């Protein structure tokens, strides 16, 4: 069970350091808040059009959250020269990936849960009756974003231009997540039954599984230098 | 290097010949004239006339009398009598190409066939924008490879760069 203890240890380390100085979560949160404010200023509050574009606004805000927050996943290790120590762990290096992935997932879910009430506030949505489907959609889509984001963060963290390279790599390849999440959220917000949009959630699930598995196996090569 | 330029010279001549044949085919089979040219030059051979059918000028003839409409382009009108069969696609304000002869004594263009507008500037630009960068890329890569071989041969191995 050495493998799972490494996963747990890395995730716990990240959560603990985040709890002590909340810089990552707070920067993610305030950036998303800014995006929401700008959207609520730029679009007139005509309820029909607002209902059309609301899922897009929600997922653009969460996408920006991912870009800001996930790019720094491995920054602490690189700055403190810990990447070589990862090599010494006698576990498949995918364990490190899973630990980081779980930490990122929890950060992003926290920020999203805090942001949803703000959407209700600024855009006059009624989310309470759709709470469970929305939670499910957010969870599944965030798993996918986290999976891709952690992998690309490991690829770009040592570059000087990492702030630029990370979104350039992440955004094209996460298009299925955004399409699936927006369509599922649209179905949920319009009050349709779950069966009408559940194939989007299935698409997100397939994406998640493929990406976590592939990244897990490929992580071996990233630390292999 | 000389073989490189020779090969490319032959290739460019082949493409020039093909281009010339393509242009001559265009002039022979595709090129259209406008009503202005028709009225000013009055050619007698079979020509392709392109223009927009004027609103309200489409007169369907009763049995035995053919279609009449006027085509206009750049402000010049030419009246057309259409003797052919497929008349369903004729509508007001549609741009078409008709194939026929100019009858100067009657002042009408007698047409038997309708064609689609050629849109050849799109075809030309697609070919130009795709094939010319391709040729430039291949040529620059081959030239660079030839230059590198020459430079490596000249470079002596155990001599540090000054």
């Amino acid at each position, binding site marked *: 069970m050495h493998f799972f203890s490494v996963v747990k240890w890395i995730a716990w380390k990240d959560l603990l350091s985040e709890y002590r100085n909340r810089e990552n979560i707070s920067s993610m949160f305030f950036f998303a808040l800014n995006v929401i404010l700008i959207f609520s200023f730029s679009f007139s509050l005509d309820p029909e059009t607002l209902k059309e574009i609301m899922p897009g606004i929600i997922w653009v805000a969460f996408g920006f959250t991912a870009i800001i927050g996930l790019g720094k996943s491995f920054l602490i290790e690189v700055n403190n020269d810990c990447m070589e120590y990862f090599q010494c762990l006698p576990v498949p290096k995918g364990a490190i990936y899973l630990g980081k992935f779980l930490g990122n997932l929890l950060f992003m879910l926290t920020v999203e849960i805090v942001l949803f009430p703000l959407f209700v506030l600024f855009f006059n949505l009624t989310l309470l009756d759709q709470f469970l489907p929305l939670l499910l959609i957010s969870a599944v889509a965030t798993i996918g974003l986290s999976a891709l984001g952690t992998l690309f963060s490991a*690829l770009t963290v*040592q570059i000087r231009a990492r702030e630029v390279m990370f979104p350039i790599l992440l955004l094209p*390849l996460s298009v299925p997540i955004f399409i699936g999440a927006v369509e599922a959220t649209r179905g949920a917000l319009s009050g349709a039954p779950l069966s009408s949009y559940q194939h989007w959630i299935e698409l997100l699930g397939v994406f998640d599984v493929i990406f976590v598995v592939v990244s897990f196996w490929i992580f071996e090569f990233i630390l292999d230098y | 290097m000389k073989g490189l330029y020779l090969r490319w010279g032959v290739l460019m001549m082949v493409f020039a010949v093909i281009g010339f044949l393509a242009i001559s085919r265009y002039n022979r089979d595709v090129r259209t004239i406008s009503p202005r040219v028709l009225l000013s030059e009055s050619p007698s051979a079979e020509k392709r006339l392109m223009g927009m059918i004027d609103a309200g000028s489409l007169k369907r003839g009763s049995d035995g009398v053919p279609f009449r409409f006027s085509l206009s382009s750049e402000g010049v009108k030419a009246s057309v009598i259409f003797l052919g069969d497929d008349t369903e696609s004729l509508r007001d304000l549609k741009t078409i190409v008709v194939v026929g002869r100019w009858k100067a004594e009657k002042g009408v263009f007698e047409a038997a066939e309708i064609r689609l507008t050629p849109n050849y500037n799109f*075809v030309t630009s697609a070919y130009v*924008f795709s094939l010319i960068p391709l040729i430039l890329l291949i040529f620059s890569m081959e030239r660079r490879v030839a230059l590198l071989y020459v*430079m490596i041969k000249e470079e002596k191995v155990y001599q540090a760069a000054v």
Partner: protein
Amino acid sequence: MVATRFIGWLRRFEKWFGFVAAILIAAGLYTGLVTSSPDYYQGEVVRIMYVHVPFVQTAMLSYFTLFVCSIWYLWKRESVVDNACHAAAGLSLFFTAGGLLTGSIWGKPTWNAWWVWDPRLTSFAILFLTLVGYLMLRTFLEDKEKGATFCAILAIIGFIDLPIIHFSVEWWRSLHQPSSISTRGISIAPDMMVPFTLMGVGVSILFAYMLMVRTQMLYLQHLLEAKQGRLLSEGQFE
């Protein structure tokens, strides 16, 4: 040394590929532009298809080559294979850009739109962006071996993602609008099959030729820098 033998093999055979490609493309252009007749529905504009479809097919072929070479590099770690990966990525970007451009030029007279959010077009544009990201990553990573490894990883992830993107967008379009737009909805007359086949095979062989030349170019650049003492490690060369 394996690399030198491989480069010698490339040098010997590339001329044949280039020659066959040149003949096929010349024949394809001749039959496409001079002897074949225009399409019944699309008119002369169908001639754009004679360059567009081969470019798109070659773009997908070249991305597949990039994927295979990336796996080979992660397995064997040979520098020449990395050169082949870099070459394939550059060529893939070129053919993808050419495909997007010619497709857009074809779309304007046919659909009266420069761009539509079709499954095929969207996944093709995503492919273009992935390749741009690949080349930027390679430029930004200074250490060559790490750059090669990371880019190989990116190519593999991108290849796995492309079918997912294609299916997800197809799902999305088919729900929004019955997809009546297709790039080849009409059965092809035999008169038009000849230029299609000639150009398709010709451009694919041309891609093989360009890959050989470009791999050589990158390898030789590397070799020249090593001989000039600019590389810290010359371990790949004798």
